[in-house]
């Protein structure tokens, strides 16, 4: 079976054969990972960089070819799947290694490979001084491979494999600088918090398999819509359980606390995993199983509410942070909140669109932040930066473009088009409401304030730090490309020319709009543009013109308390420590010798007891062994003859 595919690689033929190359997309990074892992530290840095970056680049090229082919001559039904082999086959349980390509997974694949490639390229310079260079690239390649398996999986088991794979890589990479204990703790926190969601998701998968009797995602969707009426208990339960997994991975309320701490990893990791790709896996999961959520309107409503709340809470927190990466982390949580809001109101393609533009500008911002951090000798505190506009011109301009896109400055930026679409649907969709719209607008205001607070603090004002290193070509190039994408990425979906949603509509149903009359789309765009510009002006007034105003506010007791509350991420860590961690440890301590322990202790005791007892039979004496055989024969005869 494998050899057949090998033969197909040689000439790049057109037609259906092109789709046969699909397996190469995850295979390249996997091969890269294996090569790097096997040779380990012995591999020269340059070679490690070439292998690590090249493998992702190669899959990006394959993805590009497949994508072009997919668009120019779409396969039947706008989807194609490639089965490599069946892993185990027992009755209905038939998990196969099958990759499934439709517009949804194509967009995800495209973003993962391209942004991934740019970030790998950037890392070759960023990580140049670090120990464990090839280890870094090995993990990164494994991550890209797992992420691709996740988005291309055609059945739940394979999806789960990718899901856990990215979780593992995220853990390894957050704790990449493992010698500092804080990093290890952050990695552990990320792992444990997302595990809560993963468990819920696994239960959801099992529920789906046992009720619908298949692992194939498309068949599940089909059978679910036939077997379960809208609002039925099973549909609600399954959707809610899957939502749990999505919340954990995408750092949404109430499982958002791990993401800010995850910034302990190297900055390219934050860019790739904790901004552009992995954290959006939850969005992907919900979009992929959108049929289930349509069958469970309650849960879908919950998705929207969670998204709206998260985007506001994270927005306020971002406003108060000192650490540049934490601002970006909260901003990521907030932007994924927008995506959830879109999913919740049934604007599936808008969520995917925002995912794409967000991947571009958030990766850009992280990489820019990385360049700044490196330039100032690992300084993370924005209040100790300033005036870097002249020293790092290219970083400044690209960072500015990213910020503009994040703040959704009107007309020219990609973020404007995607966020605008979400805001519009949150109001006009069947499931939308003015409340969602208002939350989205408030969030947009917050976004532009905290974004430009960041820009003004870092690049304007008086210089406070000394620039020790300037980014080289391999760091500048990805910044440039991403800056271009942050602008033109939005033009694929203009109002009235919806190329993007036309493309993905075979995979994601289009949103149903109702309240056409309430507020025209044009009007809402004007308002949104106004809000973002107001935000920028507020930031200008507060942080560049008159920073004293802020200080006066924060020095006031009430302001101070509010600041601290927001700074700590609305006290969720404190709350969870009090509600879950504290009591858990207390129970564990006081209950050290309880009866549950007795069960386990008893099992161990019996295990030891029987071990010792049975060991006595192994006396080493031949005649005793002969007796054993004879007694065994007597027992066997006894059972067979007299039973």
């Amino acid at each position: 079976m494998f050899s057949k595919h090998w033969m197909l690689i040689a000439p790049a033929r057109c037609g259906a054969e092109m789709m046969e190359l699909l397996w190469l997309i995850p295979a390249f990074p996997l091969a890269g990972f294996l090569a790097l892992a096997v040779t380990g530290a012995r591999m020269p840095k340059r070679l490690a960089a070439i292998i690590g970056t090249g493998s992702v680049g190669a899959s990006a090229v394959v993805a590009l070819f497949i994508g072009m082919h997919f668009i120019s001559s779409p396969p039947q039904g706008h989807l194609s799947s490639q089965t490599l082999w069946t892993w185990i086959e027992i009755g209905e349980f038939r998990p196969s290694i099958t990759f499934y390509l439709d517009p949804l997974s194509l967009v995800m694949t495209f973003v993962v490979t391209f942004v991934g490639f740019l970030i790998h390229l950037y890392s070759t310079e960023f990580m140049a001084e670090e120990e464990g260079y090839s280890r870094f690239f090995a993990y990164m390649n494994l991550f890209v491979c797992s992420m691709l398996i996740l988005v291309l999986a055609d059945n739940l088991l394979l999806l789960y494999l990718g899901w856990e794979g990215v979780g593992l890589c995220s853990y390894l990479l957050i704790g990449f600088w493992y010698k500092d204990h804080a990093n290890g703790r952050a990695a552990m926190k990320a792992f444990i918090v997302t595990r809560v969601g993963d468990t819920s998701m696994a239960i959801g998968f099992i529920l789906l398999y046992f009720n619908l009797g298949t692992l194939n995602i498309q068949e599940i969707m089909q059978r679910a819509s036939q077997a379960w009426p809208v609002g039925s208990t099973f549909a609600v339960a399954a959707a809610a359980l899957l939502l749990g997994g999505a919340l954990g991975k995408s750092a949404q309320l109430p499982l958002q606390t791990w993401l800010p701490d995850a910034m302990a990893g190297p900055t390219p990791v934050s860019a790739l995993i904790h901004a552009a790709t992995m954290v959006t896996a939850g969005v992907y999961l919900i979009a992929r199983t959108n049929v289930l959520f349509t069958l469970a309107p309650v849960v879908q409503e919950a998705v929207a509410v969670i998204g709206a709340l998260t985007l506001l809470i994270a927005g306020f927190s971002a406003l108060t942070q000192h650490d540049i990466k934490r601002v970006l982390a909260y901003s990521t949580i907030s932007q994924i909140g927008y995506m959830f809001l879109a999913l919740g109101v049934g604007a599936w393609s808008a969520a995917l669109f925002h995912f794409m533009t967000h991947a571009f500008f958030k990766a850009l911002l992280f990489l820019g932040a990385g360049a700044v951090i490196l330039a100032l000798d690992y300084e993370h505190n924005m209040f100790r930066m300033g005036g870097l506009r002249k020293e790092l011109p290219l970083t400044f301009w690209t960072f500015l473009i990213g910020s503009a896109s994040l703040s959704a400055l009107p007309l020219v930026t990609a973020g404007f088009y995607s966020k605008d679409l979400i805001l519009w649907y949150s109001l006009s969709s069947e499931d939308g409401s003015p409340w969602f719209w208002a939350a989205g607008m408030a969030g947009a205001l917050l976004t532009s304030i905290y974004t430009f607070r960041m820009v003004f603090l870092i690049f304007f004002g008086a210089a406070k730090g000394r620039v020790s290193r300037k980014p080289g070509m391999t760091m500048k190039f990805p910044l440039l490309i991403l800056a271009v994408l942050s602008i033109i990425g939005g033009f694929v979906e203009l109002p009235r020319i919806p190329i993007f949603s036309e493309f993905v509509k075979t995979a994601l149903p289009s949103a149903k709009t109702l309240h056409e009359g309430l507020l025209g789309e044009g009007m809402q765009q004007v308002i949104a543009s106004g809000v973002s510009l107001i935000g920028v002006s507020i930031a200008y007034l507060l942080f560049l013109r008159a920073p004293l105003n802020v200080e006066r506010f924060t020095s006031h007791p009430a302001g101070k308390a509010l600041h601290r509350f927001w700074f700590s991420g609305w006290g969720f860590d404190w709350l969870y420590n009090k509600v879950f961690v504290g009591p858990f440890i207390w129970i564990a301590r006081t209950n050290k010798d309880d009866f549950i322990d007795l069960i386990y202790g008893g099992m161990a005791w019996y295990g030891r007891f029987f071990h010792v007892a049975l060991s006595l039979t192994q006396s080493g004496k031949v005649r005793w062994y002969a007796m054993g055989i004879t007694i065994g024969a007597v027992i066997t005869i006894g059972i067979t003859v007299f039973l």
Partner: protein
Amino acid sequence: MIPLHWYLWLSAVVFMVGVAGFLMRRNIIIMFMSIELMLNAVNISLVSFSRYLDDMRGQILVFFIIAVAAAEAAIGLGIIIALFRNKVTAHVDEANEMKG
């Protein structure tokens, strides 16, 4: 003609004597002899079955058993001599370095 079960009882008794000797004697040579006794008990029943079934195959198996027993004894004696060289004894209970 002597009924079949007389032979079978004989065979069973000889087999039991062999098993008893095998379990009780400590000298490895005597244990080996007991095993031979067990094999010969089997031979008795095979031959008598063969006679009663009027089928030669049972007796053929007896020849194989005799041949194999000889081979086993040859190899066995080699190992027993090696044991004797090491321990200067033919008591099997002395050979219990390994246990647990």
